[in-house]
C-alpha cells in the first residue's frame, strides 16, 4: 500500500497598511504614479537621511495584533535586516526581529474538517521595497522607489494548516478582519496582500516536521491553491524516490504551473540583524492599548447582527453582504439614502456579484457610488423605469458609475405609462398576430406572453410589462 502523507503549512503574510504616507517619511503611498515621483531622501536611502516612524503604522499594527488575539509587546523596537538588492535603497530593510510588536495570537478558521485555530507566531512592522522593471532587450533593470518605505506588517503563522483549503480559509479570514479594521485593502493582485507559503510533507501519523520550502510570488488564491498542490506532489515524489527535500526558497510561475529554486552563491541569507540605532523604542501602555480597542471599528459579527435588526434583512442577505467590508459599506450608505434596504441588498447579492464574477473582480474593486445605486432603487420603485431597463442601467453604473437619473433622462428610458399611446401599439400587435390571438382565446394561456413580448419590443422595452399584460387581457376579453 502506498504511504499516506500529510501536508504541513505555515504562512508568512505581508499586508500593506492603508496609511496616507510611508512608514518613515512624508511621501505619499498612493498606488501608481510615474516612477520615482513619490520619493524623498529618506525612502531612497540618501546619505545622512534619517527615518521617523509614522504613528498610524503602529496603531494599525496594534489593531491587527489585537484582532488576531496577540499579546502586544510593551517595549518594541526596530532592527536592521542587511542584504544587498537594488530595490532596497539602503541595502538594509528596517524591520523587527528581536521585539516584534505582537506575538502569540491565533485566528479561528472553518474548513470542511471543522473549526480550528491557526496560531500566530508573531507579527512585525517593516518597510516595503521599491519596484524593479526588467528590460526585455537590454541587460538592465530599472528601479522605481515609489513603493520603497510603504508600511507593511508581516504576520507569521505557526505550521498549523494542512491543506490548500485551510490556507485559503485562513487568508480569507485574515483579509476580512484587516479590511474591517480599515488597516488595509488587502488586494492580492495589486500586492497589498502577499502570502509566502512554507510547506513540508511528512508521513501521516508522524510527529516530526519534514524539511520545508518557502514559496514566493503567489498573486491569487487560485495560484496559492495550485502552488500548494504542486509543491506537495513535488516533495512526495522526492521522498518516494529516496531523495531529500532541500530547504530553499522557490518562485512560483503560475502560467507554467511550476516553481523553481531561487538560488545564488551571492545570496548568503545571513541578514546580520541588529537594533536600528536611528529609531527609538516604542513603549506601548495599557492606556494606549485600551484606546485602540475602543476605537476599533465594528467587526463583522457585530455588523451582521446590526443589519438584521436595523435594516430588517434576512440572515442570508446579511451574511453575504458583510463578507466584504466594501460591500457592507455600500449597502449601508445606499440603504440609508433610499430607505429600501432589501432592494439594495438584492442589487448587491444578484447583479453586483454576477458582474464581479464575470469581470474577475473583488468587491474591493467596486468603483460605483452608493448614491447612484440608491437613485436606481428609487427610479425602479417609483415605476419610472422597468426592471429590464433597470438592469441595463445598473450595468452602466457598475462599469462607469453614471448617475442613473441623468442617464435615464438623456437616453429616453422612462417607462411609458400613457395608456393612449400604449393602446395604439397593442392594437397593432393584436392585428399583426392573429394566430396568437386565436390561441389565447382558445385557452392557451402561454400565448399572452408572446403578445406582451411583442408589445414590449414595439415599445423598445420602455413600458411596464404588467400594465401591458393587463391592457391586452382587457382588449382580448
Amino acid at each position: 500500500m502506498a504511504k499516506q502523507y500529510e501536508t504541513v503549512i505555515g504562512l508568512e503574510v505581508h499586508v500593506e497598511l492603508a496609511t496616507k504616507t510611508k512608514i518613515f517619511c512624508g511621501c505619499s503611498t498612493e498606488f501608481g504614479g510615474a516612477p520615482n515621483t513619490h520619493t524623498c531622501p529618506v525612502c531612497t536611502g540618501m546619505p545622512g537621511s534619517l527615518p521617523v516612524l509614522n504613528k498610524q503604522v503602529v496603531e494599525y499594527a496594534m489593531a491587527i495584533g489585537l484582532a488576531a488575539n496577540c499579546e502586544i509587546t510593551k517595549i518594541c523596537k526596530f532592527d536592521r535586516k542587511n542584504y544587498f538588492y537594488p530595490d532596497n535603497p539602503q541595502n538594509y530593510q528596517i524591520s523587527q526581529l528581536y521585539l516584534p510588536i505582537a506575538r502569540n495570537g491565533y485566528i479561528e478558521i472553518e474548513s470542511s474538517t471543522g473549526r480550528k485555530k491557526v496560531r500566530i507566531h508573531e507579527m512585525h512592522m517593516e518597510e516595503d521595497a521599491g519596484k524593479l522593471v526588467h528590460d526585455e532587450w537590454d541587460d538592465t533593470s530599472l528601479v522605481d522607489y515609489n513603493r520603497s518605505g510603504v508600511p507593511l506588517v508581516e504576520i507569521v503563522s505557526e505550521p498549523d494548516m494542512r491543506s490548500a483549503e485551510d490556507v485559503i480559509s485562513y487568508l480569507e479570514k485574515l483579509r476580512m478582519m484587516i479590511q474591517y479594521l480599515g488597516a488595509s485593502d488587502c488586494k492580492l493582485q495589486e500586492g497589498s496582500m502577499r502570502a509566502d507559503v512554507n510547506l513540508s510533507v511528512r508521513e501521516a501519523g508522524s510527529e516530526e516536521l519534514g524539511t520545508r520550502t518557502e514559496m514566493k510570488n503567489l498573486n491569487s488564491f487560485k495560484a496559492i491553491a495550485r502552488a500548494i498542490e504542486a509543491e506537495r506532489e513535488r516533495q512526495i515524489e522526492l521522498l518516494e524516490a529516496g531523495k531529500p527535500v532541500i530547504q530553499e526558497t522557490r518562485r512560483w510561475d503560475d502560467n507554467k504551473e511550476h516553481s523553481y529554486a531561487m538560488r545564488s552563491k551571492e545570496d548568503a541569507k545571513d541578514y546580520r540583524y541588529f537594533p536600528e540605532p536611528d529609531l527609538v523604542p516604542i513603549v506601548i501602555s495599557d492606556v494606549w492599548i485600551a484606546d485602540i480597542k475602543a476605537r476599533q471599528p465594528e467587526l463583522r459579527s457585530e455588523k451582521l447582527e446590526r443589519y438584521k435588526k436595523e435594516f430588517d434583512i434576512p440572515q442570508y442577505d446579511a451574511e453575504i453582504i458583510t463578507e466584504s467590508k466594501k460591500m457592507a459599506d455600500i449597502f449601508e450608505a445606499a440603504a440609508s439614502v433610499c430607505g429600501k434596504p432589501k432592494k439594495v441588498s438584492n442589487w448587491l447579492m444578484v447583479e453586483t456579484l454576477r458582474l464581479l464574477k464575470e469581470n474577475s473582480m473583488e468587491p474591493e474593486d467596486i468603483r460605483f457610488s452608493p448614491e447612484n445605486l440608491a437613485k436606481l432603487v428609487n427610479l425602479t420603485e417609483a415605476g419610472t423605469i422597468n426592471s429590464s431597463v433597470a438592469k441595463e442601467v445598473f450595468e452602466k453604473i457598475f462599469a462607469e458609475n453614471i448617475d442613473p437619473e441623468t442617464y435615464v433622462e438623456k437616453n429616453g428610458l422612462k417607462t411609458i405609462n400613457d395608456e393612449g399611446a400604449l393602446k395604439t401599439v397593442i392594437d397593432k400587435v393584436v392585428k399583426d398576430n392573429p394566430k396568437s390571438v386565436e390561441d389565447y382565446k382558445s385557452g392557451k394561456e402561454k400565448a399572452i406572453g408572446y403578445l406582451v413580448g411583442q408589445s414590449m419590443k414595439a415599445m423598445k422595452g420602455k413600458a411596464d410589462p404588467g400594465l401591458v399584460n393587463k391592457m391586452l387581457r382587457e382588449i382580448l376579453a
Partner: protein
Amino acid sequence: MCKKVSEETIEYVGILAKLELSEAEKETAREDMEKMLDYIDTLNELDTSGIEPMSHVFPVNNVFREDVVTNGDSKEEILANAPKRKNDSFEVPKTIV
C-alpha cells in the same frame, strides 16, 4: 589565544559586505581581523551576566510623525546623482537571469 580567522571566513564576509579583495588584501584582512578579535576578546574578562545590552543611551522613546503627506514630487533631485538613469528610474544590471 590567537583566534584563527580562516580564509573561508574572509571570503564569506566579503560576500556579505560586497567587497572583493585581492589575494594580498585577503591575507592582510585576515591578519588584521585576527588581531582585532584577539583584542576584542579581552571583553570576556568582564562579567556581564545579568546586564541588559544597551543600544540607546538615553530613555527617549515614542518619537513619531503624524500620517500627513509633506513631500511632493522631487523626482529630479532624487535622480540627479544617479550614475545611470533611464526612464526616470535608476538603471542597474539585470537582477533576474
